[in-house]
């Protein structure tokens, strides 16, 4: 009971503090440079001053948080990547030199590219298909909820679920993993899916696709609904069938949103490590950069230098996406 009161008190307090900041600073700003009810030169001068200050008031908490929680660690990572395992001694580029020569790192880069190719594409693809198809059926919302559900399952749960799916029992004994059960039912021999090099990467990717499709679906479904119905009807009259309408009329029109979803998932893929950690921990040649970094960072006491240098590589990989977004943002700004 006491804990509950405390919880409510902190929650209300925290949210209130945030609200108070925004209202308070704006109240102060308007008090310092009053314009309401006034007219004339003073009022317009004050208004101009407040207009110049206000964006920064609005952004201050966000910029502060971003700086502290993300920008600062980025610089810290870059610094650490040039230091030794305890982060105390400057070692130049030796961490990067080590990296290039490390077979596991090269394996991770290769796997990461596989992930980058497959996961964003398939998540977006399935998300798109689901979003498009469910719009046409009466039980679409139920279907959407079910497909969204993996997003709501905690990571622990997701790992359990897929261990169940991929479970392997020796040939002859009863399979409790559904995949092997299906294989056996069709007369095949059961496989230990997680241990088949190269292909096991794909079995891991399936998990992330399974989770992320819900995300893609929610966002793409909104975009699809924004397509003018008339263009679709026009295509129907033009004689296009369902597939042609979908691929030639609908998809091109929401290309922008598809790109956003794709970007978001791509970035997520670069960061993903928990799936690999839980399912194989990088064994059987399934290592990926984020997990490799995690490994070096924390395993056996941690090698911050090498961990950080891998993090730096991850961040470098995202530069093309960033450039692309800068371009888009400026283009959009011109339109404003």
């Amino acid at each position, binding site marked *: 009971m006491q804990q509950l009161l405390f919880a409510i008190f902190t929650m209300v307090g925290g949210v209130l503090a945030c609200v108070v900041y925004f209202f308070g600073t704006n109240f102060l700003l308007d008090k310092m440079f009053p314009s309401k009810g006034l007219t004339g030169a003073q009022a317009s001068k004050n208004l101009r001053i407040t207009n110049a200050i206000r964006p920064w008031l609005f952004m201050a908490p966000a910029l502060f948080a971003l700086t502290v929680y993300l920008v600062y660690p980025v610089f810290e990572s870059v610094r650490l990547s040039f230091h030794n395992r305890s982060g105390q001694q400057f070692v130049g580029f030796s961490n990067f030199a080590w990296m290039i020569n490390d077979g596991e790192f090269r394996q991770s880069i290769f796997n990461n590219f596989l992930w980058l190719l497959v996961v964003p594409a398939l998540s977006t693809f399935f998300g798109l298909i689901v979003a498009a198809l469910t719009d046409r059926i009466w039980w679409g919302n139920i279907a959407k909820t079910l497909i969204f559900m993996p997003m709501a399952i905690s990571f622990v749960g997701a790992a359990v679920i897929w261990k169940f799916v991929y479970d392997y029992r020796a040939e002859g004994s009863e399979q409790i993993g559904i995949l092997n059960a299906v294989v056996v039912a069709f007369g095949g021999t059961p496989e230990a899916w997680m241990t088949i090099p190269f292909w096991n990467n794909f079995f891991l990717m399936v998990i992330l696709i399974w989770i992320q499709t819900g995300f893609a679906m929610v966002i793409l479904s909104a975009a699809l609904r924004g397509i003018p119905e*008339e*263009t679709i*009807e*026009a295509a129907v*009259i*033009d004689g296009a069938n369902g597939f*042609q309408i979908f691929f030639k009329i609908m998809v091109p*029109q929401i*290309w922008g949103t598809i790109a956003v979803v794709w970007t978001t998932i791509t970035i997520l893929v670069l960061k993903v490590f928990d799936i690999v950690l839980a399912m194989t921990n990088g064994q059987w040649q399934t290592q990926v950069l984020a997990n490799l970094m995690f490994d070096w960072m924390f395993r056996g006491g941690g090698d911050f230098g090498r961990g950080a240098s891998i993090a730096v590589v991850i961040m470098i990989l995202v530069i093309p996406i960033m450039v692309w977004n800068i371009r888009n943002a400026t283009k959009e700004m011109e339109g404003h």
Partner: protein
Amino acid sequence: MTGLVLKDIRKSYGAVDVIHGIDLDIKQGEFIVFVGPSGCGKSTLLRMIAGLEEITGGDMTIDGERVNDVPPSKRGIAMVFQSYALYPHMTVFDNMAFGMRIAGESKEEIDRRVRSAADILQLTKYLDRLPKALSGGQRQRVAIGRAICRNPKVFLFDEPLSNLDAALRVATRIEIAKLNEQMADTTMIYVTHDQVEAMTLADRIVVLSAGHIEQVGPPLELYERPANLFVARFIGSPAMNIIPAKITSAGASTALELTGGRISSVDIPTAASELGKTASFGVRPEDLQITTGEDFLFEGTVSIVEALGEVTLLYIEGLVQGEPIIAKIPGILDVKRGDRVRFTADKAKLHLFDAAGKSYRAS
């Protein structure tokens, strides 16, 4: 060939009946215009013809073949949407070629047909542009071009000009009229809000109201002999002035007592049984003339004068409850607000409707 036949066509959305049984016979090559107030079901009817809405009841035949269950692309129709509905990601050429590509026409044939349509619509210069780089009028022409390329038996237009500005509207209207001439065998069905479009383009106008047909006929017939009050008020702009009246003597010519007390007579025969009944007396603003004589129809104080140059509109308020009586007098007048003016009108151009709104003349 029999063209398009609608037989007791009905449409409901769930429990809401939107179309209440439309019977219509459209000959091949005819230009039909649907008019009616917003929400009366024009678009719905057009979309049913196109096959974009399911038909709840009744039969529709094109060239004698029942098409209720034929998909849109097999009905031999083409449609121009109110909102253009161009494919925003395709060039003008691709927009027009899309249907043919889907149908698997040869490259040469596609090229030939698109270019000939572009020629007609003066779009040749813009074939490589995307729709967003076109002005409103050009977009509309592309939409029409896309329809032309389908080489349809029936051409459907849903308020194609409503988003254009005045000058473009006139120009495109003339283009559609020409098109109609060039494609003499093609039936055209056209939905519009615009009086002028309806009057100038139609072979026959179909006036719809709340899901049923009020009157079908050539434009001038509707203008001169509206079958009922609804059509009378709907066709013509500004709308016909309606003055409540009482029939004071029936016969070959009818005498009326108008609200306000003036007695008038119209050259419309009425049965003796109508004597003493209330009626509506109608006269179009453009049929009113200013008079200084004693033989006037009514007299009133001008509340608003709108000089348009070519014509002048006079608004006389207070004569009829709620609405002003409007007179449209050619040229520029020297009438000011507050002036008292007397109006008269050619007897042949007066209208009389019974209490239910039916025209006495229409028989």
